[in-house]
């Protein structure tokens, strides 16, 4: 038995201690998460309730899926401000398609398609138009919201096909389906980023675009791919959001999702300028935000002061983890 154990300590798997210090520097967000988790448990016993835990998971799943895509975009050195608006647009159009066709599959497919197409346009603007991603996606943010409002005449549209709400409201064992979709997406994006050349190229591009290009990487395609990917993920999120409430609002759905998603990515340790960061970090980042929102509801913080508390804790979480 001993033998097998020692075998693990080959030169490439360093000692326990250096492993911990590596964990700390690479994944300090996990430690921040654990501390916040413990603090929350102590402050309110209801927090640990299994139902509450499942609620939190459910609550972060939509922004979580978007944050996964945002991680990829930010690793590539860009940003996507349009996610919230595109979610509204994809939701509105997909509900219309759903109602028109009566087919859930078509509804879902439409959402993905609209999201992917909006992302593709963002990618084109960034890659071929050479527009700063901030401004390109700011434009898309305004435009997508505007089209959604126009189509839905400023109001919300509701699904009329029974069974559509099942997507977000079904459970598998104790988990809500959206949570499982989130985890599936997380695993998928993890694999894409760490096990395929696409992911490798994204990191390279975010770190040094010129060197990436001189390494014979088609930087433009990768960029378009990155924005199309987040667009598709936003489409997935739109399906869940629409199905959950069986309706989507052209005016308020998705409002400020970009800020939450970006906050999760940065709390998760991804560098603003790209090239450095981890999918796992983002997952813990989004969990931290979820716990914060949940705790604020549980603790009855004065509504006017919730922003203050949230802002403060985000900053503390980030200060706490920075190591460079």
């Amino acid at each position, binding site marked *: 038995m001993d033998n097998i154990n020692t075998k693990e300590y080959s030169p490439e798997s360093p000692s326990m201690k250096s492993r911990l210090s590596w964990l700390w520097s690479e994944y300090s967000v996990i430690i921040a998460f654990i501390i916040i988790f413990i603090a929350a448990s102590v402050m309110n016993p209801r927090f640990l309730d299994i139902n509450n835990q499942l609620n939190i998971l459910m609550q972060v799943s939509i922004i979580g899926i978007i944050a996964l895509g945002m991680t990829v975009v930010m690793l590539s050195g860009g940003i996507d401000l349009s996610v919230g608006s595109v979610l509204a647009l994809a939701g509105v159009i997909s509900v219309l398609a759903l109602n028109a066709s009566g087919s859930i599959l078509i509804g879902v497919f439409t959402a993905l398609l609209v999201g992917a197409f909006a992302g593709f346009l963002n990618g084109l603007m960034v890659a071929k138009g050479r527009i700063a991603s901030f401004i390109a996606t700011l434009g898309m943010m305004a435009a997508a919201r505007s089209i959604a409002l126009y189509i839905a005449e400023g109001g919300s549209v509701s699904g009329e096909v029974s069974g559509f709400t099942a997507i977000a409201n079904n459970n598998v064992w104790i988990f809500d389906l959206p949570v499982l979709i989130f985890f599936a997406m997380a695993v998928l994006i993890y694999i894409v980023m760490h*096990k*395929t050349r696409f992911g*490798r190229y994204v990191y*390279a591009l975010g770190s040094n675009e010129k*060197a990436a290009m*001189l390494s014979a*990487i088609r930087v433009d395609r990768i960029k378009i791919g990155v924005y199309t990917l987040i667009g598709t993920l936003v489409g997935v999120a739109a399906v869940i959001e629409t199905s959950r409430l069986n309706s989507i609002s052209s005016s308020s759905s998705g409002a400020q999702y970009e800020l939450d998603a970006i906050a999760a990515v940065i709390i998760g340790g991804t560098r603003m300028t790209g090239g450095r960061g981890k999918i796992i970090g983002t997952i813990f980042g989004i969990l931290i935000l979820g716990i914060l929102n949940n705790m604020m509801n549980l603790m009855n913080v004065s509504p006017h002061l919730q922003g203050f508390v949230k802002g403060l804790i985000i900053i503390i979480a980030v200060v706490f983890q920075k190591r460079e």
Partner: protein
Amino acid sequence: MTSQPFVAMNQIEKSFNGVPVLKKVTLEVEKGEIHALLGENGAGKSTLMNILGGVHQPDSGQIFIEGKQVTMANPHISQTHGISFIHQELNMVGDLKVYENMFLGSEIRNKAGFLNVEEMCRQTREILAELGVFLNPKEYVRNLATSYKQLIEISKALLHKSQLIIMDEPTTSLAEHEVGRLFELMRNLKKSGVSIIYISHKLKEIQAVCDRYTVLRDGQLVKTDDMQSGNLEEITKLMVGKAISQERFVHEHEFGEMALEVERLSSPGLFKDIDFTVRKGQIVGFTGLAGDGRTELFESLFGYRKKYTGTIKVKGKAMKITHPRTALQAGMGYVPKDRKENAIIKDLSVVHNMSLSSMGNFERWGFIQDKRELEKFSNYEKTLNIKVANPRITIDKLSGGNQQKVIIAKWLEADTDILIFDNPTQGIDVGAKQEIYQEILELAKLGKAIIILSSEAPEVLRICHVINVMYHGEITARFMGDETNEEEIMHYATGAKREGEHIG
């Protein structure tokens, strides 16, 4: 009284992440001497200087300036002690103008507290002229060639009227005549009592200008001595543990079929009517001064620049190369110069940098196989003698020379039939240089077509079969490698002489 050195670094120790880099190193520099700091890549030269310059803090040991102990907490403090630092990596602010870079941190202001632009421009022109450079001080630095950036970096250090100037490989992208002027300047500085610490891998330079030398090896002091008493061979031995020949490589293998034919390649303002051919197994060199257009030429050939006319034939087939990817698919590889900007991806690990251009070699079912990457890397680690404790650390933690070797490994791994090396030995120590030349020669023997761009005439002379000399975007001469010499090359490179082809 006077025997007190200007700077004394005593028993300096430093480690990064638990890896010792400097082990009780002691260095003394007298007033008015030029002191060479020598050693292999990764020996700890830059680290030692970074400690003196306030960039890094030593783990233990003391620094004395004129006998008084000081703490170099940051670059600002070091500067106030009269120390200027020319860093190994260029540290220019590209978005500022030449004069703004020169005076960054020490601007001249008028009585009202506003910047005195005219005075700064005047002084900039003056000091650049001393190095034989005539530039518009209001030009943006980002628009300048690397050699100019390096000259500006040097001038900036001169500006401070310091008592000690640290020069960490200041000449890596300078041409011969520019180096000559720099040496003249250094000798003048020495006369006026300024001390200089000079780091370079070009031993001829060391001999030409230095008074004393200190050799480091694996972070340990090996020897400090006067220059006269040691000859180059001895120093080399101290550095790398064996003697290195400076002889020209002998080529005995046969050339294969035509690999690359370039006809009438032109790009407005960059290069004009370029014709040349490379056969399999042939090593073709391109040399010239800064601004001769050779980098731009090969960046175009490699698809990084797109605005050019003319025909490119790879293995007899005419190609339109519009992207580095197409170039790679056509069988071309390119090791760019200025690795910090163009070659290394500093957030990727050493292994991942190596595999970046040839992901296909490491994939199975579309997924990257980590193990295969590591295995391949350990091969290169041995053959190229790359010094790295753990190949999973990010590449920016390696010494400059080792970074360069990883980049070369990257293109060896891509296994292209044509390999273009732009300044392949920039900042590489003599031992490693030899290894890289050896590797290039092996590649040629395997039938690869090799192109070497270099501003160092001796480099192309040592290894190339054919040498092209460029001047102002044109090929002004072509020699067989064994039928010419440095002097002749210089003539054509400076435009003093102009002729048609020298070989039939």
